[in-house]
């Protein structure tokens, strides 16, 4: 059994405290949510916390907007990867890709989960 971060977007209230926690943790001296490895992406009036996955050299070749229940979602924006066409999850000054590392081991360290009061980010057990 291992712990993993579970994201329940329906509980997210968009306060972006997770972004601040991540940015602070990974910096020595400041906070910059644009360097954060978790971003809360707003789609219409809904909030989607997205944790940074690996950088990919590939660019998607499919339509990225899907309709669910009458609403449109930009799946590219909700994707965990940064890629040649997506500047999210990269250092703004150097362009170096960023990836979630759970704030080190064990995963219970994850700053974003600790700071989330809405219940959107929790730790769950998952079988290996």
């Amino acid at each position, binding site marked *: 059994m291992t712990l993993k971060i579970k994201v329940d977007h329906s509980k997210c*209230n*968009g306060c972006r*405290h997770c972004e*601040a926690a991540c940015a*602070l943790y990974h*910096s020595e*001296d400041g906070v910059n949510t644009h360097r954060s490895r978790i971003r809360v*992406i707003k789609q219409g009036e809904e909030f989607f916390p997205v944790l940074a996955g690996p950088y990919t050299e590939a660019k998607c070749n499919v339509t990225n907007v899907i309709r669910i229940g009458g609403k449109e979602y930009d799946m590219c924006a909700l994707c965990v990867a940064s890629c040649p066409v997506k500047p999210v999850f990269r250092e703004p000054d150097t362009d170096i890709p960023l990836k979630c590392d759970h704030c080190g081991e064990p995963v219970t360290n994850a700053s974003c989960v*600790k700071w989330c009061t809405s219940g959107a980010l929790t730790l769950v057990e998952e079988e290996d």
Partner: protein
Amino acid sequence: MAGWTGKVLRVDLGNGTFQTEPMDPQSRSLYIGGRGAGVKLLYDEIDPRVDPLSPANKLILSAGPLTGTGAITGCLFSAVAKSPLTGCIASSPSQGFFGTELKHAGYDMLVLEGKAEAPVYLDISKGKVELVPAGHLWGLNTFQTEDLIKARMHDKWKALDTSIACIGPAGENLCRMASIVNDRHWAASHSGVGAVMGSKNLKAIVVNGVEDIYVASAKPFMDVVLAYIEQTRAAPLTSRVLPEQGTAFLVEKLSELGALPACNFQAILVDSSSVDGKALRRLSPRKMGCFSCPIGCEHLVSEGQDLEVMAPSLEVIGSLGPGCGVNNIEAVVRANRACLQMGLDPVSSGGTIACAMELSEAGAFPEEEVGFALRFGDAEAVLKLLELMARREGFGNVLAEGGRRLAGKYGRPDLFMGVRSQEMPGCDPRAIEGAGLHFATANSGPSFDSGDTLLTEILGINPSGVEGKAGLVKEAQDLSALMESVGLCRKMQMAGFSIPEVFAMMEMVTASGMNDADLMKAGERIFNLERMFNVRAGVEGGSDMLPRRMLDEPLKEGIAMGHVSRLPEMIAEYRGLRGWDERGTPSERKLDELGLTDAVAAGEAK
């Protein structure tokens, strides 16, 4: 420098020039930032007697050193100007994300001067400063304005991060109660700051940036913030009540105390079940939070339309609901949506309409003035009047001047329920004495923002008593001046946080070496400098007065039945504690003690 960016952007709209200036170090230590630094700059740079809607007035948007740092509730910025509603200082706080994004764009403060020849918007989203023609935006409501600006941004990723503050038709048309709406759902509401923005032909301010906000001791700061988050989770008010109902939960409390005014303060609403926090919950609101707030007291509701908007707060419900005789939460949601879209302050607008309703029922003006019979409880009329008011059409042109001028025009100044020309929020001073004293003395007009005694009075001490209220109000006002200057939301107090927590976060973020006494002193200093602005603007302390109805007409029902406001008893004690004379002017000794003597003398020499 940590906490502060240390930079001020000054924009002269008249000739389209701008410059970046360092923030005055003395201003940082004595006035901190946000509201305080904004007030100091305005005090130093304008003649307090200027016409507030002339190019000589300045509009300052100012974030605090804790804004955007991740400090709990650290999202605040304040809009500071001379108010076209009150003629006094206006310092109107707002939450959301604009303050944080302003700091990422590299500035603590924006100073907007002069007047553009034609409508423009200010764009600070591309690593540079630009004034862009805004003819295509003029006339649009605030939602349309934000949508159109974002739709025309070439970079969709940037658009996702961008924060916009704008005015609606009300600001363009110089309605004296116009607000500045930011991030769609929040607003610097009070005192007509939106009209000042409109008078400058400035439609919107677009901010985005990737600059770091430095934090002096990041790791210990994270530990402290986490401890406060745990405390927020443990307190029932901040873990359950506020996230479920928002500040609307206080509507029921006020009605229980016989303090929820109805029909322009003629009566009180005893049964609030159709407009309170529980009624709001029946509309299945979705939770929404301001930047870095562990409480998350805001909500989105959609009522009748697909369009989701911010749910009404305590103040909004009181003014657009029972205040106008509208005891229906759905109607309040619709009226609040209209206010947000038009860029109107719901409290002043609701108060003005309530005043018009009473004038109409009292026969102070013929029906033809409005075009239809205006009666309390007519929710459709409220909606229609808000629209007319924002566009200054027909009777709306009279309403756009605010309740005091309206009541004066029809020869019934006694029917205006406000202080310093600003409408009181829905809390009856006859039932909650401390709130009354605060409303009477607040420098920028009555509002819960500038001194929140409600929680203490409702949960702690005898609401309708006067003992200890002078001290309570002074402390709440000074604390609020401090919180709005460091950049924290007053609702953080609902988790039990106060000066020690402000101090701890300030120290870890800024390492400025200010102790808690320094911070409280700064709050008092800011409050007194605002008072001196009003004194120099020609506003005498005699305006520290509640409407006659509060003093002469006892409440007719509820548990505070028979009570009137005992303001005259409290105010003498209050002035004593403040070190003010009987006219409400700070004494030489008080100014000296606060280190304000030079600042005041410099102002007078101009």
